[in-house]
């Protein structure tokens, strides 16, 4: 099992085992010695991580441990939030995305992000789904029938089609929060991303909405690599295949979810999942 190589407890990042190459299972995102500073403050410290393809990986840890920062590294959206310095390497599709010849525009096309607070754009549902295609289209070269088809496919994929098919021209901001969040996922799909990053996708939703979104994520896992940041340990446990525990910008433990929760190897992980701090 590839899990073995995750045994690196990562407390001392310079341990040799860390640098072992991933085996067997296909890896979607690889980071090597990734460090990140906001100004003088170091938010990530030598993060080395292999996120496998086609599964759901959740990032857990107390507030301020760098989960969201790490997530934002994967599509380099961090650069928009002010004075950020990054060192190390992040490989996606076998290309270091920190290289100068990487177009962030193309990168973000293949690495989509879903936010904590659903943020559909204040335009119609139809236009929301097409937004990505429109900004990436060379000219306005998508025919009307093709557009209709894109919208229908994307909305069907997230189980929203039946609810909104009669009001596609309505403003997306009038939908319920759960529907908005589904729409936010749906609008990534026409871009055919490799990876979908989710930053606490359910924390604005009620229990029922959370369940539906979780089921949706579960279903999407077949086609995309999904990385979920969550504050909610129970959710990480329910709805993820692998789990990464982070603390103060470092990775403490990265193992299959059941193992991590049943038999945590690191003392800090154990204390955290028992709820003794964080």
């Amino acid at each position, binding site marked *: 099992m590839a899990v073995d190589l995750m045994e690196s407890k990562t407390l001392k990042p310079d341990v040799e085992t860390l640098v072992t190459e991933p085996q067997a299972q296909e890896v979607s995102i690889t980071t090597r010695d990734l460090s990140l500073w906001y100004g003088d403050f170091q938010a990530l410290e030598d993060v080395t991580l292999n996120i496998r393809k086609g599964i759901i990986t959740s990032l857990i840890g107390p507030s301020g441990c760098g989960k969201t920062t790490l997530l934002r590294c994967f599509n380099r*959206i961090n650069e*928009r939030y002010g004075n950020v310095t990054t060192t190390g390497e992040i490989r996606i599709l076998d290309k270091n995305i920190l290289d100068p010849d990487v177009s962030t525009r193309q990168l*973000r096309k293949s690495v989509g992000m879903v936010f904590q607070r659903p*943020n559909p*754009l*204040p335009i119609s549902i139809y236009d929301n789904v097409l*937004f*990505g295609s429109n*900004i990436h289209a060379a000219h306005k070269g998508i025919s009307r029938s093709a557009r209709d088809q894109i919208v229908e496919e994307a909305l069907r994929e997230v189980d929203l089609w039946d609810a909104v098919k009669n009001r596609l021209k309505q403003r997306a901001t009038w939908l319920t929060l759960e529907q908005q969040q589904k729409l936010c996922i749906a609008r990534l799909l026409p871009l055919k991303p490799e990876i979908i990053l989710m930053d606490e996708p359910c924390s604005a939703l009620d229990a029922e909405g959370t369940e539906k979104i979780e089921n949706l994520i579960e279903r999407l896992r077949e086609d995309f690599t999904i990385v979920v940041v969550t504050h909610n340990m129970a959710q990480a446990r329910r709805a993820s295949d692998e789990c990464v525990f982070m603390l103060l910008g470092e990775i403490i433990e990265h193992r299959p979810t059941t193992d991590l929760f049943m038999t945590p190897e690191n003392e800090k992980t154990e204390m955290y999942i028992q709820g003794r701090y964080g």
Partner: protein
Amino acid sequence: MANVNLNPNDGNNPFARTPQEIKRKRIELGAQFTFLMMTMALVIPMLWIMWDLAYRASDVLSYTYMVIGVGCVGLLIPYFLIEAAKRNEHKRKLFMGLAIAILAGISIWIVCITVFNMDNGGFDFLTLNPKKRMTAGGVWAPLIGTFLLVLLSLVISAPIGILAGVYLSEFANDNWFTRIINLAVVNLAGVPSIVHGLFGVGAFVYFMDMGRSLLAASSTVAVMTLPVIITSTKEALTSVPQSFRAACWNMGATKWQTIRTLVLPNSINGILTGVILQVARAAGETAPILFTGALYYKKIADTGFDSFVPYGLEDRFMALSYHLFTVATQVQDVPESFQFGTAVVLIGMVLMVNSISIGFRIYLRARKRW
């Protein structure tokens, strides 16, 4: 420790009002009343001034008042009827019929009264040029002058101001240079208009060799209105929630795509507010145009196309604000109603532009929600 009694009530009700509370309540009521009085101190004199102006100008403008009044009522009632018709399925035909009947009736009435009442004054004050050393005729020449001045100055300042605001708010990095520009913009908004006027003389009339002309005056007014347009544009752009931008960036939109498809459409409201506020200012200012192009009196065509575009870019022109100054202080034997009429026309013009903008903003706001 001193034993402070926080609950002086000895009765059975543990939540009874304490004397301090009652006293505080009284003071708050007093304060509230004072605030109300302060508001009234603004509103009452203003309404009184408006009423007084309108009343004293009624000799020359009574017909205009009537048409505008009836016109407003005539548009509002059908509007509400149509709204009611949308909601009420059963009486839709009745409401729509009534609305159409009222609209038709009022248009016919206005046409008739205009045709039959021509020699009774009518719109003469608005449509005639000043005659006999301003003691007769109307305000058409200055009215169209002010209109062209405002239009031209907006054509110059709106694009520059809006694009500068977009740059400062969306593209510029936060460094000392940008900060100095921002500081300058804020301070320029407070520069007295006569200083802008002198700047205009130096920069446009002499340095750029425009001479005293409509173009020079419009440019001066444009420079005067720029800071506020820039500031309000910046504020309008900042008020668009960051989360929308984040959504756009995360799909790989470029900065300009984000601005064009998302930020500008959602901030057009605030941008327009800034621009339209400047219409009022551009129309009302006398000092900046005094030295740069406004003229005491200019004879223009009374009818035809030339009366609508009487001033070329190179020509000097008449403007309402300057005309008001003229008829109020520089010419003798002007009927009182002419002086007040000019003021009312100036205010009315500004109010009309403002109400159009308010209507437009209501329309835009109805479409937006986040």
